[in-house]
């Protein structure tokens, strides 16, 4: 008997992406550039986060012809974003055979209270988190992979650093804690107790955790790996840079060799300008994507 959509194949798929870079693309041509540069997967969208930010208004699931075009163009896995809580967008993407769905705060949430019950799907989901409470709630809902949120479309790494440090330091707290202290921790963080117990036993999250939201240079990607990310999502950082092909290759190599500083130095030469960055403190609170879907 053949069993599809099991927890093992959904979480296992993310395990195979570790040490890799997942790149945002908006058409087949960009997808091919990403694949040729060594991306482990691409995220097919209508607009990269910095353009979503600039355009304002409501950001929805991409036009599905873009997703279809990208799926035809490359042999690596294709991910796509659905709005938080938008069950039908997610089911639609699943029916098209997308390899992973990102229930993403980059799009305007469809539901400001509930997330999708992801364990009911055959396709695996990745979700954003900025602390252990969010991480564990998403796992309990059935996310098979996490990514720290950062602040998408800013080209500013500061929020990504804050979130990966926050999640990893809370994991260390859980590991060091006595079991009899765990229930109060669960209550204070709104985090399901059983998953906290599992984290304590494993010494890490039960799913892969990538970093996202603000990676703009090879050194940024390496920094995320240094801080304990399993891999890196790069949104606007590649195709909003002056030389996407070069940036894509350099970011892949820097992620893999994140402690080889001489190599990162070489990779950082003559890259051209990275995407233009935004100062987070200049953003209005309602412009912060990381505050969505908590």
């Amino acid at each position, binding site marked *: *008997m*053949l*069993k*599809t*959509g*099991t927890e*093992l*194949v*959904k979480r*296992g*798929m993310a*395990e*195979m*992406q*570790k*040490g*890799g870079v997942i790149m945002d693309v908006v058409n087949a041509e960009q997808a091919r550039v990403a*694949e040729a540069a*060594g*991306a*482990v*997967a691409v995220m097919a969208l209508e607009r990269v986060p910095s353009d979503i930010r600039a355009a304002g208004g409501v950001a929805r699931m991409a036009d599905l012809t873009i997703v279809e075009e990208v799926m035809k163009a490359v*042999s*690596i*896995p294709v991910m796509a974003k659905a709005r938080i809580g938008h069950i039908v967008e997610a089911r639609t993407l*699943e029916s098209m*055979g*997308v*390899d*992973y769905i990102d229930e993403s705060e980059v799009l305007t949430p469809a539901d400001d209270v509930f997330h999708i019950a992801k364990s009911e799907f*055959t*396709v*695996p989901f990745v979700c954003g988190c900025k602390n252990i409470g969010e991480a564990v709630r998403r796992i309990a809902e059935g996310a098979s992979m996490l990514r720290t949120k950062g602040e998408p479309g800013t080209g500013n790494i500061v929020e990504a650093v804050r979130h990966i440090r926050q999640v990893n330091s809370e994991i260390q707290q859980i590991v060091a804690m006595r079991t009899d202290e765990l229930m109060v921790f669960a209550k204070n963080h709104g985090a399901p107790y059983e998953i906290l117990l599992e984290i304590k036993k494993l010494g890490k999250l039960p799913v892969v955790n990538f970093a996202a939201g603000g990676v703009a240079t090879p050194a940024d990607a390496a920094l995320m790996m240094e801080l304990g990310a399993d891999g890196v999502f790069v949104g606007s950082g590649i195709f909003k840079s002056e030389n996407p092909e070069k940036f894509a290759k350099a970011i*892949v*190599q820097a992620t*893999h*060799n994140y402690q080889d500083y001489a190599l990162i130095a070489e990779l950082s030469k003559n890259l051209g300008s990275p995407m233009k960055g935004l100062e987070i403190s200049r953003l209005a609170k309602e412009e912060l994507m990381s505050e969505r879907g908590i």
Partner: protein
Amino acid sequence: MSVKIGVLGVQGAVAEHIKTLERNGVEAVNVKRLEDLSDINGLILPGGESTTIGRLIVQGNMKEKIQELAKNGMPVFGTCAGMVLLSEKIEGGEPAHLGLLNATVNRNGFGRQVHSFEKELNIEGIAEGFNGVFIRAPYISEVGPSVKVLETIDEKVVAVEQDNILAVSFHPELTRDDRIINYFINKCK
């Protein structure tokens, strides 16, 4: 003699293989650069994205060394992407990577992620009733005369052995069943 087995550590499910080796009493080496290949008795090519791993072993100047070691008889075990890396031919015209296994492989032959599955397998001479975890898995569509087929699903070959080379479409490292890895460890002794 104590056995030291390398796990190609450029991308993919590296930690799982290292953990599996260690719990079976073997010293595991995370092979990230050329020097790491110098003192090992066997090499595991893990699951991951074969295009990414293939590119990184060329950039890291490891491709020729791995080919040389395997041709001199060092055991090599490829899981999933590792099977793609080992095969002499890839369907669809993509250029081969290491070309050490006399076989043609169909990358993602079982379909996209929604078709990923678990299935009980009988790996000839190695393990009966083994839970195979297939993730966007490849299969082998044609084998040369020196390749022994160990298991198939609907005529799709999912486990093979060719002298010192062992390759499977699935991920034993994601399970707690260590029979296949122990078979490989014995080949390395």
